[in-house]
């Protein structure tokens, strides 16, 4: 089989998305423009501007309280995060008026810092419901059960998630590491175009960190962008970013290459506290 003639471009329905991605070549995947956000009358994001290119892995670092997690929640569409100014554009179109499920169907995925336990809903059922709901919203045909099972089994094996865990209720009784691996499994199955990983390294020991990072790295592709939010440089040794942005007091205060992360490790965040003030 030397020739790949007639080989599909993307997995089934992804063809349409690929075409769309090609058409919008000149538009950045995500553009955050002068974003101001309040939570319970407290100003958290303060004129944040950030562009994520297609296929780019961007690290967002910053001290506690700089607004990193707020950014993650605002992108996913959580209630009670009030955008008072600015905009968030995905493929050049605003997503601020969209419900979380509509954003997910457009390809936005948030790996939670604290994944929620969902009693009574088996992980497998949850994954299938989510995947098929997204496909339905996009006008794509639902996955057949064998096709779906195969996809989940392959991915879970790579992440060291056993079949027994898939039958259990989502995250119920899972260890911290298992919960994080489950987030990456969901990401792999749902194939987002923009994955936001919120402190995916927190609470992981070095072995778990390696497994999770490998899982994330396997998902890197020219069609998928990632925002990797972390407090520490450690994670970025495993998930090497294309760019690093530093957040302080609700805005990006410095951007640079991957070496910026190392620099921060040496100097700390104190310098930025002054800059943003």
């Amino acid at each position, binding site marked *: 089989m030397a020739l790949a003639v007639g080989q599909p471009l993307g997995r089934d329905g992804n063809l349409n998305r690929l075409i769309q991605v090609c058409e919008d070549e000149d538009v950045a995947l995500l553009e955050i423009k002068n974003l101001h956000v309040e939570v319970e009358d407290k100003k958290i994001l303060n004129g944040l501007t950030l562009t994520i290119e297609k296929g780019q892995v961007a690290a967002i670092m910053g001290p506690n309280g700089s607004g990193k997690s707020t950014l993650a929640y605002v992108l*996913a*569409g*959580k*209630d009670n995060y009030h955008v008072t100014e600015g905009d968030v554009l995905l493929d050049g179109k605003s997503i601020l008026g969209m*419900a*979380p*499920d509509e*954003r*997910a*169907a457009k390809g936005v*995925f*948030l790996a*939670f810092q604290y*994944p*929620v336990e*969902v*009693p*009574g*809903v088996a992980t497998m*059922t*949850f994954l299938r*419901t*989510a*995947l098929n*709901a*997204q496909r339905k*919203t996009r006008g794509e045909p639902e996955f057949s059960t064998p096709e779906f099972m195969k996809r989940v089994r392959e991915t879970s094996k790579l992440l060291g998630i056993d079949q027994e865990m898939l039958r259990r*209720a989502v995250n119920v009784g899972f260890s911290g590491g298992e919960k994080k691996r489950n987030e990456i499994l*969901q990401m792999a199955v*749902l194939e987002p175009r923009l994955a936001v990983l919120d402190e995916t390294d927190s609470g992981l020991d070095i072995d778990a960190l390696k497994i999770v990072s490998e899982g994330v790295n396997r998902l890197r592709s020219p069609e998928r962008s990632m925002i990797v939010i972390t407090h520490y440089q450690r994670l970025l040794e495993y998930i090497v970013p294309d760019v690093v942005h530093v957040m302080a007091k609700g805005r990006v205060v410095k951007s640079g290459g991957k070496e910026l992360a190392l620099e921060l490790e040496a100097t700390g965040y104190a310098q930025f506290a002054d800059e943003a003030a």
Partner: protein
Amino acid sequence: MNAEVRSMKTAAEQALSAAFAAARDTLPGKGAVAALREDAFKRFDAKGLPHRRVEEWKYTDLRALMREAKPLAGPAGAKPKGDIEPVLTGVDANHTAIVNGRYEPAWSDFKDNDPGVSIVELFKFLADEPGYRLGETPGSGDPAHWLNTAFMSGGVALRVRRGAAPAKPIHIAYVFSGDAGAAAMYPRVVVIVEAGAQLTLIESFSGPEGVDYQVNSALELVIGDGARVDHIKVGCDGGAALRVSTLGVAVGAKANYKNFAFAVGGAVVRNQTFVRFGGEGSEGAIDGASLLKGRQHVDNTLVISHAVGHCMSRERFKSVLDGESHGIFQGKIIVEPHAQKTDGKMMTRALLLSDEAEADNKPELEIFADDVVCGHGATAGALDEGLRFYLMSRGIPAKEAEALLVQAFIGEVVEEIAHEGVRDALMFAALKWLGSR
């Protein structure tokens, strides 16, 4: 002033008196049965319909909710096509129909001929077996139960003989046919499960949607030593119906009794369950799930009496309340003196899907023995926003996310039903309810 002085009779109470005077000579049963009727009506007449100042009926003020007493239901017409209880379609069972308050063999579908099982018309049974004393099971001191005894129009007596274990569930379907407009029916059923026998018993309640018919049913269940009974009550009453059901269970020694009360139908439903553990080493689980919307009012009231020691009881009730519905749970565990080593636990959870829905939970413990383990817990609240967001962030639309969470909430108790077919049928009914929201 005497606090016991009764105020003027309501229109419904007057109608009940008139109906009893007119029907007393034609209602079935002679001798002891007729005397029982007279006595029950006299007791009822002295107290009247229970109201909010009667503690046991605090949340279901029958005097206010039952504005009129409907005339006694007439004979059933021909059986309509299809399954007698559509919710149970697909459940392989032997069906016994009680239509408009009377046993209707023509509506029944009892295929199996198990020598260990007998089903006979109630008043034939009472005439043939004068040794059986009707109304001795717990709960017979309740005013709604008196009313059933006064007006009981028919029913069956089911007996599962010593050691018998019928392969299929026995389903007793209470149906109001609604042929001639709204009416009242008073079915009465006796179930005797002898020592070492096993039975899966299903009761279902149904009737036409738009008719404000009334049901006052009573079932007395006697469970012999070492017997095992799985009892499922399916409440699919018509949307305008008022139903009061009284269940009295006497549990022998080393027996196992499971009860599951499922409710989706009815305008006003009072499901009262009285269980008495009279023999040591028995276990009981009284569970339930209600899914309510609109202005439905469903009251599950339990009284679990541990008369002897070394028994275990578990009560788990869950309700999902939408619209302006009102869900009530009253559960009382009584541990009598000397009932040592009793282990009783009660849990009730209400999930409120709307701001206008109301949940009342009243767990009570009355403990007169000192070496027991008893406890209760009650919660009521809205769907967890964090959970909802998590599901939606994965692409699941709001309604679907809510349905999945409600399904999981209800599933936790529905899964306790041992019979797979019934379990699946009720889960399917719950999904249908969710789909109709």
